[in-house]
């Protein structure tokens, strides 16, 4: 098994606050890694370091052996990392089909392609691809609608479709069910399970334990910027340190 | 629906012919002359032919900073049209000599007019003039309140073979390096201002002076500064500094403070319009007029004055010397006749912009009568070298070599004790024509051909 993402010895300080303290992580191909931790534990900072948005004070972040530090978001995406945001980031003024065709174009044409002569209409291959992904996510009926009119759950599904149409090597999910109704959460879990079956490598940051335990192969627990535990869901469930730091109150 | 059909029929035949002809141009591009000249008309542009009326184009600033001047010019034009058509009291038609006008329109045709907005921008002014020429079929374009606009429109009129009678334009370039065969200027220019002011300045302020110039940073300002320096330096004055200021700066204080300690004892403001109102007001506020430098009273000179500007500057104008083309307080018969009919029509006296525009219209009409035709080359020839009197400036000549009018220039002073709200300028001296005349060769430029 190859290592997709390798985070080693990462430190990050904000003023007097040690946001990340010697964090080491490895994500293997096909694995789903969940990062959990109480609020302010440094989950978002870690994610931002992983995608190059924040430069760590020390340490390295490597993706398939290539460093991600100092790279622009588009470079990281072109390298094969796709990202799902806490609040779905889609193109609200464009219709669903266009929303999915754009990432497909990026995958095929690269970061910049000055193509003003060909017509969108004639990008048949891209269009077919996009339609098949819309179908897969059950959005095909709405493909002519503006994406901004979708429900939050549908927006999330659209965003996933946009990420997956690029066939990324790594998918990062930042609290994919935050702010969703129970019903939407459940459908999203189903969806993520399906994606997992296809062998996609994923990193999930999540609050919702139901989501974490039903999806993750491996869980890492962050507290005050440091990893206090890591292992399979079962190991984590039974780790006393975790119970103390995070699950404790709920268990009592 | 019926109305639309009717409309369609109205513009049907001739227009469609015309339009299909334009289409033909595309195909028949080998005969380009076909469209530029009015192929179906006679020998010159916008020939009125058998029509019972002729149209003149009054192109004045209606929006922007000079729109008050523009409005006054338009009043004068309307008056001129009335007088030409034999309406009203006739104004200067009663005093002009020699005169071919009869108060029966021009060459028996009733005078009509169209108006346009120059916005004091070359582009807008040319667009407006083109509309007049291409759409309204005017025979002559006149107006304007800025040299840049006048030069731009004059060039256009030359290309189109339409006579341009410039309104208020004071730059040397209009009849200097940018002069045109089809362009005529009655107004005086910066050179003449300098020539007229020089001796008066010497008399009033002596010949040991140090002058500090503030100059509007554009063509007119530069020619004004150049002329003023030429004539004051000839008197023995020194030019301590000449500073360019951005047009429309509003607050000139940062340019005025350096004057205070420069050792200069005269400030020459080569500004016009809003800029002049502001810079003069601020110069007075900075106490320049109460100052003593080199044992002499500090003085301010504004080479180009107008009554509208004097109104804007309020009491700051009092006692300040400048030059002007014409003032309503002149006592000659022509001026009185014009002030009378203007005053009766509008309730206040005309500005110098109004005067020059009125005179220009009459001069054009008169030249057509003299030539007996509207054909521009003939009209131009009768204007060139035309000498006349009774139009407010004494004996005047349209010099053939540069189309500049030569006449007496007024040196004026801001009135210390105005007897009425319009009585703002005192005439200090009528500088005789001989003193402000110059050789046209000094500015270069070429008039160009009679036929285009």
């Amino acid at each position, binding site marked *: 098994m190859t290592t997709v993402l390798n985070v080693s010895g990462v430190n990050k300080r904000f003023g007097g606050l040690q946001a990340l303290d010697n964090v080491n992580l490895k994500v293997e191909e096909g694995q789903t890694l969940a990062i959990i931790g109480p609020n302010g534990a440094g989950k978002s900072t870690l994610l931002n370091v992983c995608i190059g948005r924040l430069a760590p004070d020390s340490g390295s972040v490597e993706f398939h052996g290539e460093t991600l530090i100092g790279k622009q978001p588009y470079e990281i995406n072109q390298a094969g990392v796709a*990202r799902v945001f806490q609040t779905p980031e889609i193109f*609200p003024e464009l219709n669903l089909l266009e929303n999915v065709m754009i990432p497909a174009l990026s995958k095929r044409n690269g970061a910049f392609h000055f193509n*003003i002569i060909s017509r*969108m209409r004639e990008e048949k291959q891209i269009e077919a691809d996009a339609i098949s992904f819309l179908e897969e996510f059950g959005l095909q009926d709405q493909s002519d609608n503006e994406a901004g009119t979708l429900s939050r759950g549908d927006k999330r599904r659209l965003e996933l479709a946009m990420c997956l149409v690029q066939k990324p090597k790594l998918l990062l999910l930042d609290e994919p069910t935050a702010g969703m109704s129970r019903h939407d959460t459940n459908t999203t879990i189903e969806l993520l399970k399906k994606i997992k079956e296809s062998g996609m490598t994923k990193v999930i940051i999540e609050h919702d334990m139901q989501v974490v335990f039903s999806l993750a192969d491996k869980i890492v627990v962050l507290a005050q910027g440091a990893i206090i535990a890591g292992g399979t869901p079962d190991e984590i469930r039974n780790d006393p340190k975790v119970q103390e730091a995070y699950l404790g109150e709920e268990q009592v | 629906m019926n109305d639309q059909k009717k409309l369609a029929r109205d513009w049907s035949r001739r227009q469609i012919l015309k339009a299909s002809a*334009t289409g033909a141009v595309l195909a028949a591009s080998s005969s380009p002359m076909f469209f530029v000249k009015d192929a179906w008309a006679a020998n010159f542009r916008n020939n009125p032919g058998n029509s019972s009326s002729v149209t003149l184009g009054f192109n004045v600033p209606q929006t922007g900073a000079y729109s008050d001047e523009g409005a006054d010019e338009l009043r004068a034009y309307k008056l001129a049209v009335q007088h030409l058509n034999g309406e009203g009291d006739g104004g200067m038609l009663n005093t002009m000599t020699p005169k071919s006008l009869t108060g029966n329109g021009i060459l028996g045709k009733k005078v009509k007019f169209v108006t346009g*907005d120059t916005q004091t921008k070359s582009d807008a002014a040319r667009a*407006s003039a083109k509309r007049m020429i291409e759409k309204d079929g005017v025979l002559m374009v006149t107006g304007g309140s800025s040299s840049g606009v006048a030069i731009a429109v004059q*060039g256009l009129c030359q290309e189109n073979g339409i006579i341009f009678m410039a309104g208020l334009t004071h730059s040397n370039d209009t009849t200097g390096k940018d002069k045109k065969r089809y362009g005529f200027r009655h107004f005086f220019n910066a050179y003449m201002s300098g020539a007229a002011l020089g001796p008066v300045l010497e008399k009033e302020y002596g010949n040991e002076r140090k002058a500090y110039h503030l100059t509007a940073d554009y*063509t007119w300002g530069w020619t004004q500064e150049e002329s003023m320096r030429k004539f004051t330096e000839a008197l023995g004055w020194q030019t301590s500094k000449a500073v360019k200021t951005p047009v429309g700066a509003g607050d000139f204080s940062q340019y005025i403070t350096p004057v205070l300690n420069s050792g200069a004892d005269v400030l020459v403001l080569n500004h016009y319009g809003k800029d002049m109102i502001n810079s003069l007001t601020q110069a007075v506020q900075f106490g320049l007029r109460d100052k003593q430098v080199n044992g002499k009273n500090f003085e301010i000179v504004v080479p180009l004055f107008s009554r509208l500007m004097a109104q804007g500057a309020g009491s700051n104008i009092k006692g300040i010397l400048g030059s002007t083309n014409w003032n309503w307080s002149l006592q000659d018969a022509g001026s009185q006749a014009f002030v009378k009919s203007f005053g009766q029509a509008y309730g206040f006296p005309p500005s110098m912009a109004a005067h020059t525009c009125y005179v220009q219209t009459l001069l054009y009409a008169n030249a057509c009568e003299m030539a007996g035709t509207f054909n521009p080359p003939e009209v131009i020839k009768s204007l060139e070298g035309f000498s006349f009197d009774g139009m407010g400036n004494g004996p005047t000549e349209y010099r053939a070599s540069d189309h500049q009018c030569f006449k007496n220039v007024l040196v004026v002073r801001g009135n210390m004790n105005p007897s009425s709200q319009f009585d703002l300028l005192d005439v200090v001296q009528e500088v005789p024509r001989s003193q402000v005349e110059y050789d046209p060769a000094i500015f270069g430029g070429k008039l*160009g051909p009679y036929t285009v």
Partner: protein
Amino acid sequence: MDTISRKGELRMMALFAVIVLLMPIWLIPFGAAYPDLLQKFAIFGIFAVGFNILFGLTGYLSFGHAVFLGVGSYAAVWSFKLFTMNVIPAVIFGVLFSGIFAAVIGFVSLRRSGIYFSILTLAFAQMSYNLAYSVLTPITNGETGLQLRLHDLRMIDGLFIEAGEGLPLTNLFGIKMSGYPGFYFCAVLLILAFYLALRIKNSPFGMALKAIKSNQLRMGYTGFNTRPYLMSAFMISGMYAGLAGALLAVTDPLAGAERMQWTASGEVVLMTILGGVGTLFGPLLGAGLIKYFENIFSSYNDALLQETFSFLPDMLNNLMVGIISPFVGDGWHLTLGGLFMVIIIFLPGGIVGGITMVWRRYMKKRGASAEMEGETS
């Protein structure tokens, strides 16, 4: 998909070409069928269509776009002065130089977005204007504007033609470019420019621009490097403006600094908004309307109004003239401002947006009633 098919495109272009080329006929009832105004329609149409490529597609509101218009004009006039009166090199120089200017200004301004971008472009425009008006006078001839002179160099023309007595005229291999031929030259370029804009809008590149407007963050995380996209859009749009500027000089060889003033930049914004941002025809319509107002409305005076309403009884006539006269003639700016506010408040999509909305509603209603009929029968 929101774009049109190849066949639809062809049909649309054919219709468009016919409408543009027949303007000298169908504008007659409006009193607008004279060469200068027709030229202005075509030229400012190009300007607005180009501006819309930037503002309409990417949402970046440039408040200094008139700079490129000015640069295009200056470059074209210099081409007339230095090389030849033929308009082809002038147009090429105009586009080229405005492209270079756009590259420089865009490189700096596009480092910011939103209102900061607007202010940066505005600052650059004001600097260019102030300099062109004063210090750069040797190049721009200041307030008077850059004009042709008899003794200009005209290197290429000098080889072939003896200089005449008067100023030479701009020409396209012998066809004079004033009057109607000038209009047709501009009109053909407008049609080409419009076609290019149509293709850009419907291309993957155009789609990327729309996506940048919609969500720039997502664009980055989707793997697009947005800077070169914005740069290209800015440069294309600047070159359109340069083309328009060059054409202004082609039909009338004069270039003035006031073309670069920020109010001139504001005007193209007004045009685009008035017609409809992001729509294909909107900017054209807006450009036409504003130029029409400027030229026709400003020429209305009381006498003309009296004549227009002369069919009414005297009292009504005076009343109508009284009501209308503040809004025409020297009041046309008031009309413009008022109309503009009304559009922004009630029709954010501009005139074309408004028409589309009404049309869609109508179609929906008809669709609904057709369904009803289907059910009942």
